[in-house]
Each structure stands twice: as structure tokens, then as C-alpha cells.
């Protein structure tokens, strides 16, 4: 419809050079001859306007006379004249006109050109022009035009837009009329514009904004947010079945947009503006709607029967899980929604006057304050603040003195240096016990919400609110101390006082309850709630990197640890992919700890907790569904609680992940392969590329090496993969061939599951081929068993390690002999070959860097707590075998029948090169972890029976269990051999 490029056809005396003053002059003539827009000339006009933009920008960069001409002829006035015409498809022309202006203002680089364009107030006339805003295209171009102009604002250009004498600022006042436009992009543009305006440092302009527009604009915003959250609340109330997740997520995202916008304004630090905005927010939204919604439950209750107040601490579960049960009276939202929204407020806003007030009201406002009504709350806070300042001024600015304030009858003021431990514990909590708690109406609601007896719906929000308050930068420590953070005491003179800090014992116990709850089978606490509870727990009790937890609370944590372990033990090997799940969950967890801000962006948590994955809700944010997910959950709970224990003890993780990247062979590492088993093969890739390599099978890894050109008998690793991730199949047509797929190890980095290698291996003859296949298959099983044993030890499953029991004797012997390949054969049948999968090989005291902390406690456990498990592991394993038979298909690699074999292929010895050689290439590290310092070239502490000078063995667990042939391959292998 645009007659594009029509001007190329020439004629009408148009200059040849499109970018020239002459061409602009020509266009000027066109405009002056076509001052009335009609059906006939609108195409021409659009073309001309477009060309004018192009010439002006060219002129801006190349020829100043172009701009001179433009101004001299007052060409912007033509623009206005065209705009003001209502006929002949003016919107079509208007759009081009606005776009021309956009292009002009966006691309002009020369300051003077910009000033010229703005100088004669035409731009303001264009801004106030009443376009046809019902045309969405006009609207979009118009608002983009305003936004583009706002990006050009600075201390100089502001004067072209803001007229100090007439007190007129059309750019701003016209724009904010659209702040609630239904089109989201328009709203965003308005917000951008306002922020760009506020950013300009011009006192009189800002005074104008404050005096003339701030109150109406901000109160409008606040009013709309209020209206908005009522909608949100209705949405939550009416959707127990997760039917309107989309709508809810929009509403939540919208609320976040508002908060972020407010935060962006507050962060500009314009004092006057912030004052007005904070005032509006507190008095018209946050206090009356958000905070007072927290009190609804209590108020109703106290109205009913004062006697029930005593029960306020007993679980009132009905109140938590069904917001519907609360009448929505005088514009309150449900407690759940209020907690959620307040969490968002504390997570996003950090403007101290605002968050400080809110935190004070929630944590410290007592009943008297509460009863005096909404309007008084803020005054009370100000009174409190004044007291504090006075105290500080008078030189006694000790935070404890604050509590002398009559408005703050908190027990903590009695905290004294010379009191005993017990007393301290009692006094530690401002809200200790029901008696005092009921004096804090808002805090009480928050605490009540922590109850998980029925479910953790409200608990999650209560936790996030408490966490958010404690982490908010705007909230000073005198408010959070002792409620949300440990309170440090000045070290007492009598050294027998062990504690040097107090913490909120009441809250800690509440949180501990959640943690203990989570470790029960079939509990209704979601993983995310547990993780958040643990986060808060650390915040509550860790002071300067040290825990201040009392002995009894420590014991509770230990109980939780033991229970989480017991919980997971139930699932150990009950799922055939247990190992993969275990590693995957660990990987997933190591990606980073819970981001509470992100959590509170998710609207899915606003609906009552559900178990079904069909809602599309994240696994951690719902209850497990089915046995596999229950196992996953148990794994997670175990990791989370384990992590807490480590944090509290100030220890670093030394046992996980199961694969220690530092003990693995890396690509390009040089290896001493003298005396190792090497199988020559040709690797044929899918694309036909061929490579001659030697196959080496290590305890955990498959390594393809090529000979090291520098040293005889050494090889350089060209490809490494984990044995546990391989798939091997024979070739039906060629008995010398194997198809090998090596999957990528589970890693947090990417979800890319393209195999590391997928190729055909051609061996010299079918014997080599069979040997390779057998060893790969066996290697895979053994690698997995090894890890399963590691898990068993972590879970303190009896019989896995510790002092060798009689049943392990044979294995122990085989192990010690493993360094001497010649001695192996006769040892073969000493094994109990019937052991169940995963129970097999003696766990060499391996996993470099591992400290067997678990062993001792395991032994204690075994002696005391598991009468069913005889110390005799042989009997134990016999029992297991029957079990494994019952589940024939339970996992691949389970031996179905003992199959003593005559052929034994010793696994090779691989000697690692000294560090200096290893370093020849960049290392690939998989999940580095903090590790107890370890000499890099001594991966196996257990090989210390070797002369220290010699290069230590990489891994030499010799497979004695020739019976261990994967079910699916066993028979075939045997036949062929």
C-alpha cells in the first residue's frame, strides 16, 4: 500500500542525490503544495515525510545547512498542520509522521540539531495534540514517540519540555494519563517515561512533579494496586482446583511489576518524591490492606470468645488451608495472600523508611497499638523511632534500652549480663509462650501460619515473610535482632556462660518442627518449604558464621538427620534407577540454593498444595506423586538436612558428589599404562571418521588413549567416559564389532543429553571384542555398585563398611592382592558370589579424600538399633539374594545366577603420571567440590602399601566376581567364548 520507491522513477525535477539539501528543498515544495491531506496525495506525503527524516539524519552527520533549511522554513509546522486534519485517512499519515519524528529524535547525534528541533515548541504542540488514540497503531507510535523523547531528557533539554513559568510539563502530564492503559506495552512505556523524567536532576521540575502530580499519580497507582490484589485474592479463593493458573500468574506478575516500578522510583532517591510515595503506600495500601489482613483470624476469634485466645497456639489447621473459611470483610485479603504479598514487598523494596516501618509493625506492634487502629500504627512507630534517636543522642544508644519504651513491652529488656543460661533462654524470645505472644497480633498470625500439621500451605509464606524481613536491607538490626537474628551479648565476665548470643527459641522450635515433620514418611511438607525453613533456621541461629544453638536444639537437628537418613534408607535400591536419581538430585541441588525472590514470583504456590505433576508445578513446589517421586523427595530431604548439619558444624562436604572429579582421568592427561590391559581398536564414528585407539578400562572410567609420543608405554587420554553411563551392544553382522554409546554424565550445567560418544568399535578379532565387551559390561556394574556402596555408607546401612567382618575376609584379601595380578586366579571362588547387587565388593577405603565419619556412628547404630541385621554379612547377603530374585527385573546388572567363569580377565593397572605431566592441557572439571587437601597424584589412599615413591595406582579394584555378568549379556558371552 505504500508506494515504495516511487521516487526512483524520477521526473518532476527531483534531484538525483537523495541525500542533499536540494532534495530537502524539493520535499519542502511537495509539502507546501500538498497542505491538505487527501486520498490522492497521502501516499506522496508519507513518502516525503519518510525522506525528510532520512535527509535530516544525513544532514545531522554531514551537512549542517540541511538543518538550517529545515528550521528556516519551519517545516515542523507542516507536520502539525497535517496532524490536525481530520480527513483523508489522517491516521495513516499520522502514523508515518510520528514514526518520522521517532526516527529523527532517536538518530540525531548532534546536540545543536536536537536543540534546533525542540526550540520552537512545536514538539510540545505535537505532544498535546489529541490523536485518535482508539487506533492502536497511532497509540503505539505516539507512546513510543513520548518515550523516545524522554530518553533525550537531561538537565539541558528538560527546559524544552518543562516550562517553569507556565508550570507546564506536557510530556509528563500527557504520558501519565495512560498509566493504566489496557495495552501492556503502553503501560510500560509510560513507566519508562516517568522514570526517565524523575531521573533528571532539576529542582524546579521535580518540585512541579511533587506538588502538582505526585499525590494524584501515586494515589492512583496505589489504588490500582489495591484493586488488583483484591482480584488476586478472589482468584485464589475461587480456585482450589488450579483451574486458573494462567490468570493467577498474570496477576502475580502484575503485582511484581508494580512493586518493581515503585522500587525503581524509590531507588532514584528523590527525597521529596519518596516521602509522598512511601506515605501513600503505607497508609493506603500496605498497612490497611496487607498487614491488617494478618489480624483477621485473631480478631474474629477474640470477638467470639476470649477464652479461646489461650488456644491460639494450638493448631487451627482449618484456618490455614482454606482461605474461603474467612469472611472477606472490609476489604481484607486472606491471610495466605497477605503473607505472600508481604513477602514480595520485603523481597523487592528496600527503601528503609518503608520496610522499617512495616517490619516494626509486624514484629513489634503489640496489642495496644493494634487496638488503637490503623491510623495510629504509624504514629506509634514514629514514636518508637524518636525514642531511639533520643536514646542514641543521650549517649545510651544501646539497643536494649529501646525496650524501655512503654509501647514495646518486650521481655528482652530484662536481658542482663549476669543472668543464667536458663533464664536467658526463657527471656530470649520476645514472644515466648502464649501469654506474651497474644500481645503481638501480627506476629502471632505469622507464627500460627508456621504450623504444618495439616499441610504447609501457609507455612511456606510465613517462612518467606520471616526470611524476607530478616534479609531486607532497609530493616535495621535493632528490629530483627533476637526475633529474626541472633542477638549478640556482650561477653560476660564469668566465663561459665557458654552462650554469647540469644536467639528466638520459640520461632526456632517452630521451624525445627517443620524440619522434623519433613523427615517423616508421608508428610505433607513440600521440599521448598523445607529448604526455606532450613534457610531461615540458619539465619536465626548462625551468628558470625558460628551457630549459637543450644544443646537441646542441636539434638533435635541430629534427630532430624537420623530420621531423614532412615527415610531414605527405605528407598535405597527400591527403585532400579536409584543411583541415577541420587546423582541427578545432587546435581540439581548443587545448581544453587533456593532463591526466595524467585520463589515468590511463582504464582503456583498461591494455590493449595497439590501432588499431581499434571498441574505443571515444579517438583519441589508440590507433594510427591508416586513411589519414584517419593524416593526423589527422600533423597532431597536427606541432602538438605545433611547440608544443614554440615553448615551448623562449620564443615565442608567431603563425601559428595559420588564421583570425585579430582580422582578422574581427564582428557589429554598422560597415563602410565605399562603393565595395563590395553585393547587396540578402531573407533568408527557415525560420520565415517575412523580413529585408532587403545581401550583402557579403569574402575570408574572408560578411557581411549593414543600412545604418548614422548614416553614408551605411556598413553594420552583422548576420550573419557564414565562406565556407569555406557551402553554396549554387539554387532550381529560382525563379531569383531561393538556399538558403544557413552552418555554424558549428569551435570547441572545443561540439559543436553547428546551422547558423549556413539560409535562402532572394531577390534582385531572376536576374542578381543568379547573381552572388551565383558569388561565394559562388568565395569559398568562394578562402577555402579561402588557408588551404591558409597551411598549405603552415607546412609549408615549396616554391613557396608567398618571393620571387616568374617564375611568380608575374602574380599579383603582379594583387595590387598589386587596389586599383584598373578595372584588373582586362585582367589576367585573365595567370594560369596551370590551377594545381591550393590552389596558386593568390599568397599575399598576409597573415594579419595573421604573421611569415614559415618562409619563409627554406623557401628553404634548396628550394635544397638538393628537386631534384625546380624553382624554376619554373609547371612545378610543371602537374604538379599532371595530378595533380589523376587524382583528379577529390578535393575540391570543383577546377577540372576551365580555363573563361575573360567576366564578371568584381570583389570589393568593404570599408573597416573605425575602432576607436572598431567597439566599439559586444560582440565575438565566436573563439579569441583571443596576437598580436604589431597595430593593430586595419589588418588587412592588405600594403596599406601605401595612404596611411596612409585606412581600410585589409579584404581585397581580387581574384579573377582566373574559371575557378575549382566543378565542380558551373560549367556551370549559365554557361548561365544
Amino acid at each position, binding site marked *: 500500500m505504500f508506494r515504495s520507491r516511487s521516487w526512483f522513477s524520477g521526473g518532476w525535477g527531483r534531484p538525483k542525490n537523495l541525500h542533499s539539501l536540494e532534495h530537502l528543498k524539493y520535499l519542502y515544495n511537495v509539502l507546501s503544495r500538498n497542505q491538505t491531506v487527501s486520498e490522492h496525495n497521502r501516499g506522496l506525503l508519507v513518502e516525503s515525510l519518510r525522506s525528510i527524516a532520512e535527509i535530516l539524519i544525513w544532514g545531522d552527520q554531514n551537512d549542517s545547512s540541511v538543518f538550517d533549511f529545515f528550521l528556516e522554513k519551519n517545516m515542523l509546522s507542516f507536520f502539525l498542520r497535517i496532524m490536525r486534519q481530520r480527513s483523508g485517512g489522517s491516521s495513516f499519515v499520522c502514523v508515518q509522521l510520528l514514526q518520522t519524528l521517532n526516527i529523527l529524535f532517536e538518530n540525531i547525534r548532534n546536540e545543536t540539531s536536537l536543540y534546533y528541533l525542540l526550540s520552537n515548541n512545536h514538539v510540545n504542540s505535537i505532544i498535546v495534540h489529541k490523536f485518535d488514540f482508539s487506533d492502536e497503531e497511532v497509540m503505539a507510535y505516539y507512546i*513510543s514517540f513520548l518515550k523516545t523523547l524522554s530518553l533525550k531528557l537531561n538537565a539541558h533539554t528538560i527546559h524544552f519540555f518543562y516550562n517553569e513559568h507556565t508550570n507546564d510539563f506536557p510530556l509528563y502530564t500527557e504520558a501519565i494519563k495512560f498509566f493504566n492503559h489496557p495495552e501492556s506495552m503502553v503501560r510500560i512505556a509510560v513507566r519508562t517515561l516517568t522514570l526517565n523524567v524523575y531521573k533528571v536532576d532539576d529542582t524546579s521540575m521535580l518540585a512541579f512533579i511533587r506538588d502538582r502530580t505526585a499525590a494524584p499519580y501515586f494515589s492512583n497507582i496505589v489504588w490500582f494496586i489495591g484493586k488488583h490484589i483484591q482480584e488476586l485474592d478472589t482468584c485464589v479463593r475461587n480456585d482450589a482446583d488450579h483451574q486458573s493458573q494462567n490468570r493467577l500468574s498474570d496477576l502475580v506478575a502484575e503485582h511484581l511489576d508494580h512493586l518493581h516500578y515503585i522500587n525503581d522510583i524509590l531507588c532514584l532517591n528523590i527525597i521529596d518524591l519518596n516521602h509522598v510515595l512511601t506515605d501513600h503506600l503505607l497508609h493506603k495500601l500496605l498497612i490497611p490492606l496487607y498487614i491488617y489482613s494478618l489480624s483477621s483470624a485473631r480478631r474474629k476469634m477474640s470477638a467470639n470468645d476470649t477464652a479461646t485466645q489461650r488456644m491460639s497456639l494450638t493448631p487451627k489447621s482449618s484456618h490455614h488451608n482454606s482461605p474461603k473459611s474467612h469472611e472477606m470483610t472490609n476489604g481484607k485479603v486472606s491471610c495466605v495472600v497477605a503473607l505472600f504479598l508481604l513477602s514480595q514487598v520485603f523481597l523487592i523494596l528496600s527503601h528503609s523508611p518503608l520496610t522499617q516501618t512495616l517490619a516494626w509493625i509486624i514484629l513489634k506492634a503489640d496489642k495496644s497499638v493494634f487496638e488503637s487502629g490503623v491510623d495510629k500504627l504509624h504514629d506509634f512507630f514514629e514514636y518508637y523511632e524518636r525514642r531511639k534517636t533520643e536514646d542514641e543522642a543521650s549517649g545510651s544508644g544501646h539497643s536494649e534500652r529501646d525496650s524501655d519504651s512503654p509501647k514495646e513491652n518486650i521481655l528482652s529488656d530484662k536481658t542482663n549480663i549476669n543472668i543464667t543460661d536458663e533464664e536467658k533462654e526463657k527471656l530470649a524470645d520476645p514472644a515466648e509462650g502464649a501469654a506474651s505472644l497474644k500481645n503481638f497480633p501480627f506476629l502471632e498470625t505469622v507464627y500460627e501460619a508456621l504450623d504444618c500439621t495439616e499441610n504447609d500451605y501457609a507455612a511456606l509464606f510465613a517462612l518467606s515473610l520471616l526470611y524476607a524481613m530478616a534479609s531486607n536491607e532497609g530493616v535495621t538490626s535493632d528490629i530483627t535482632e533476637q526475633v529474626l537474628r541472633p542477638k549478640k551479648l556482650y561477653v560476660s565476665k564469668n566465663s561459665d556462660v557458654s552462650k554469647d548470643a540469644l536467639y528466638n527459641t520459640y520461632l526456632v522450635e517452630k521451624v525445627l518442627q517443620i524440619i522434623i515433620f519433613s523427615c517423616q514418611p508421608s508428610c505433607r511438607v513440600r521440599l521448598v518449604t523445607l529448604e526455606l525453613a532450613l534457610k531461615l533456621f540458619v539465619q536465626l541461629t548462625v551468628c558470625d558464621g558460628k551457630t549459637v544453638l543450644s544443646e537441646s536444639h542441636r539434638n533435635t537437628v541430629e534427630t532430624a538427620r537420623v530420621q531423614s537418613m532412615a527415610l531414605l534408607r527405605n528407598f535405597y535400591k527400591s527403585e532400579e534407577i536409584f543411583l541415577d536419581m541420587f546423582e541427578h538430585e545432587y546435581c540439581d541441588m548443587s545448581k544453587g540454593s533456593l532463591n526466595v525472590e524467585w520463589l515468590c514470583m511463582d504464582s503456583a504456590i498461591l494455590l493449595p498444595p497439590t501432588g499431581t505433576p499434571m498441574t505443571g508445578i515444579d517438583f519441589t513446589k508440590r507433594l510427591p506423586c508416586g513411589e519414584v517421586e517419593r524416593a526423589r523427595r527422600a533423597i532431597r530431604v536427606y541432602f538438605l538436612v545433611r547440608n544443614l548439619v554440615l553448615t551448623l558444624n562449620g564443615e565442608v562436604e567431603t563425601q559428595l558428589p559420588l564421583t570425585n572429579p579430582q580422582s578422574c582421568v581427564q582428557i589429554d592427561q598422560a597415563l602410565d599404562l605399562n603393565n595395563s590391559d590395553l585393547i587396540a581398536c578402531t573407533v568408527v564414528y557415525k560420520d565415517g571418521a575412523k580413529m585408532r585407539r587403545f581401550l583402557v578400562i579403569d574402575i570408574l572410567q572408560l578411557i581411549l588413549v593414543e600412545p604418548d609420543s614422548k614416553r614408551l608405554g605411556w598413553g594420552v587420554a583422548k576420550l573419557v567416559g564414565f562406565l556407569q553411563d555406557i551402553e554396549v551392544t554387539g554387532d550381529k553382522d560382525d563379531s569383531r564389532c561393538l556399538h558403544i554409546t557413552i552418555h554424558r554424565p549428569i551435570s547441572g550445567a545443561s540439559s543436553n543429553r547428546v551422547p558423549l560418544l556413539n560409535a562402532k568399535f572394531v577390534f582385531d578379532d572376536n576374542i578381543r571384542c568379547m573381552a572388551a565387551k565383558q569388561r565394559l559390561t562388568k565395569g559398568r556394574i562394578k562402577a555402579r555398585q561402588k557408588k551404591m556402596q558409597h551411598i549405603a555408607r552415607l546412609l549408615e546401612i549396616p554391613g557396608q563398611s567398618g571393620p571387616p567382618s568374617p564375611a568380608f575376609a575374602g574380599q579383603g584379601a582379594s583387595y590387598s592382592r589386587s596389586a599383584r595380578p598373578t595372584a588373582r586366579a586362585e582367589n576367585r571362588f573365595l567370594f560369596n558370589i551370590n551377594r545381591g547387587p550393590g552389596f558386593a565388593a568390599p568397599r575399598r577405603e576409597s573415594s579419595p579424600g573421604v573421611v569415614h565419619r559415618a562409619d563409627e556412628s554406623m557401628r553404634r547404630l548396628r550394635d544397638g538399633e538393628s537386631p534384625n541385621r546380624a553382624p554376619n554379612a554373609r547371612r545378610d547377603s543371602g537374604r538379599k539374594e532371595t530378595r533380589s530374585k523376587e524382583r528379577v527385573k529390578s535393575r540391570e546388572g543383577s546377577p540372576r545366577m551365580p555363573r563361575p567363569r573360567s576366564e578371568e580377565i584381570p583389570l589393568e593397572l593404570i599408573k597416573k603420571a605425575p602432576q607436572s605431566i598431567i597439566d599439559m592441557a586444560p582440565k575438565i572439571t566436573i563439579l569441583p567440590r571443596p576437598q580436604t587437601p589431597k595430593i593430586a597424584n595419589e588418588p587412592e589412599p588405600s594403596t599406601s602399601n605401595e612404596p611411596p615413591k612409585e606412581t600410585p595406582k589409579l584404581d585397581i579394584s580387581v574384579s573377582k566376581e566373574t559371575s557378575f555378568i549382566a543378565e542380558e549379556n551373560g549367556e551370549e558371552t559365554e557361548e561365544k567364548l
Partner: protein
Amino acid sequence: MSYAYLFKYIIIGDTGVGKSCLLLQFTDKRFQPVHDLTIGVEFGARMITIDSKQIKLQIWDTAGQEAFRSITRSYYRGAAGALLVYDITRRETFNHLTTWLDDARQHSNSNMVIMLIGNKSDLESRREVKKEEGEAFAREHGLVFMETSAKTAANVEEAFINTAKEIYEKIQEGVFDINNEANGIKIGPQHSPTNPSLPGSGSSGGSQGSGCC
């Protein structure tokens, strides 16, 4: 001008990668880049045809607004498609892609179609990022990839239209909730018999004060 659907796009990427030039090149092809004149614009709209349906593309450039978190997150949320642009002659613009992508993924709705664009393909002699690298990045992150030149207009058309095609396909598959405008998709005025009260469909005169969507 009537249309079946309106798709909202955003363009993201480091400054100076040619976002606004791409936008202008697509929405107004008549700007022929001569005399080394680079012209860009922050907003543009254009009609295209897919499957013999008229589809209007609205493209919003987010340049210069990165300082405000509220703005970027809202932009992402309101878009159905995003062009993530880097400059093949500046390695650092490629290195920043992950950050941009993380941001986009975090704030946008999960169905947003993201196209990776290596711009300035006309400057072969100054190339710092290989085409293969762009391809690999796109493959790894599940994006569609293309190298373009706002200068020669190579692939510009395709970049925008292919993105639209993908959005269109997602609509056909029922992945997008088209009645939810927050997704950056709008049904044309005459195409929404089910929802005549769709705001902004061209009838409401006063835009101010009408309810929140």
C-alpha cells in the same frame, strides 16, 4: 487495518549490535542504507502473511531502559517473541548472550519464541564470532538461529517472519493461550467472537481508566 493476530516482539542484546536498525529495516524497507547512514528506530509495526492469514507484528526495542528492572521484566512478559541479537564482529556481545537469555527465560512466559540473531554479517572481514559458534549456542539453548545484516537486509525479513511462523505454529498447537493478552498475542478485532470485550480492540475511545487487564 484488520489482522488475524497481532504478535508483540521485543529485541534484546547489547547496545550497538544493531537492534534498532534491524527493526527499521524490517518495518520500513524503504530505508536503503546508503552513504553509511545508520538509522534505527525503537518501535515499528508491519503486516505479514502466514498461512494466508494477515498477521501484524509489533516490535518494541528495549534499548536504553536496562537501568530499570521494572521495565525490562515487564517487556519480557508482554512479548510473544524475542530477537536476541549479537554482533558477529564483537566477541563480547556474543559472550553476554547467556546473561540475556537467563533474563529472558526468567521473566518471560515459557512459550516465548526466542530467535538468536548474529547481526552485521556483511562485515565478514571483521568477523570475530564464527557462524558455527552461533549455531552451537542456539542448538544448546533451543533457539532458532540466523545471521543477518541490517545493512544489506540479508535475512532480516526471514528472521522476523520465521519467528512469527513459530509463534503461529504454537498457536495452532494450542500452546499459547491466545485469550490472554499478557502473552503478547492479540486476536484481531474481527477474529474474536468469543471475547468481544477484548480491551484495546479498537472501539474504546478513552484509553485511560479502563480496568486493569
